[in-house]
């Protein structure tokens, strides 16, 4: 009798959790966030990292961006269409320019999802040490436009939103 009671309570709990997961968790938004956090993690390096680690990072970044990705960063006067094949060149340039680099995405919000497209906004907090040892930390608001291709979210557009206008 007691076992039956516990079993019923357990089943109700499991059903409630399942209903919550199905109806209240936005799985697409979670996937978008996961993809962006993962690309930020790949944009992190230190002098101790081997060439092999760097090659793996480049490959992972390539997988996460579309064939061509429009990048608009007015702070650094960047307005460019970056091809997936250009990623190794740019990342190696950045690696030579910055001895240490880490990117953290703060306040990451998925603003809209209209399959197969999504838009997310975040504050990218970049901690960088130049080859000359000088610190060059930066925080910028970035807007990402992503497209779902073969069940994977890929970045098609990165825009910097300027908070202060000189």
């Amino acid at each position, binding site marked *: 009798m007691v076992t039956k009671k516990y079993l019923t309570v357990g089943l109700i709990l499991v059903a409630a959790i399942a209903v919550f997961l199905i109806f209240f968790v936005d799985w697409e938004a979670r996937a978008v966030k996961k993809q962006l956090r993962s690309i930020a993690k790949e944009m992190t390096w230190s002098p101790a990292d081997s060439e092999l680690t760097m090659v793996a990072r480049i490959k992972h970044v390539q997988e996460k961006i579309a064939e061509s990705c429009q990048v608009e960063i007015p702070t650094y006067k960047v307005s460019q269409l970056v091809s997936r094949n250009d990623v190794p060149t740019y990342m190696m340039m950045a690696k030579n320019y910055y001895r240490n680099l880490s990117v953290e995405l*703060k*306040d*990451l*919000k998925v603003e809209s999802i209209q399959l197969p497209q999504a838009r997310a*906004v*975040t*504050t990218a*907090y970049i901690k960088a040490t130049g080859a000359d040892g000088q610190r060059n*930390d930066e*925080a*910028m*608001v*970035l807007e990402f436009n992503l497209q779902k291709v073969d069940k994977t979210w890929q970045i098609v557009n990165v825009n910097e939103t300027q*908070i*202060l*206008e*000189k």
Partner: protein
Amino acid sequence: MADSSIKKFFFPKITKSYLRRLAVVAIVAIIIFKYVFIPFTVQGESMAPTYVTGSFNFCFTARYLFSKPAPPDVVTVRMAGQEVMLLKRVVATEGQRVEFREGSLFVDGKKINEPYVSGKSDWNLAPTTVKPGNIYVVGDNRSVPIEAHTFGQTPVTRIVGAPLW
């Protein structure tokens, strides 16, 4: 007697009312420190010498409930959210004309006395009019090159509050 009261304070009897009080304190603390007094640590030297890297403060969000930011208030500017904010000083409000000449700040053509700015500055910036609904903010550290300093006008709606001290 004293021993027992100290013991009672640190190791209280876990009763229903004690747990209730604990929950109330926790909820009030979360509300206060998440929405009213947001703790933050200064990172970067853009507001030096007034605020230096590593200093701790609280962003008082109710500061501008009944008033608008005005010079020379120090304000926090929201970025994508409130996890990372910019700490800047208001130098002009909507409709005013801002300009820098040889490191000196001019608002509507008048030179502004800024005792909070120390160090030499060679900033030059052509006159800019602050758009309606915006304010113009600058950091106190003007000894860095103008290109390396983040400043300018921003919508008032981006102001989260002001540092508590």
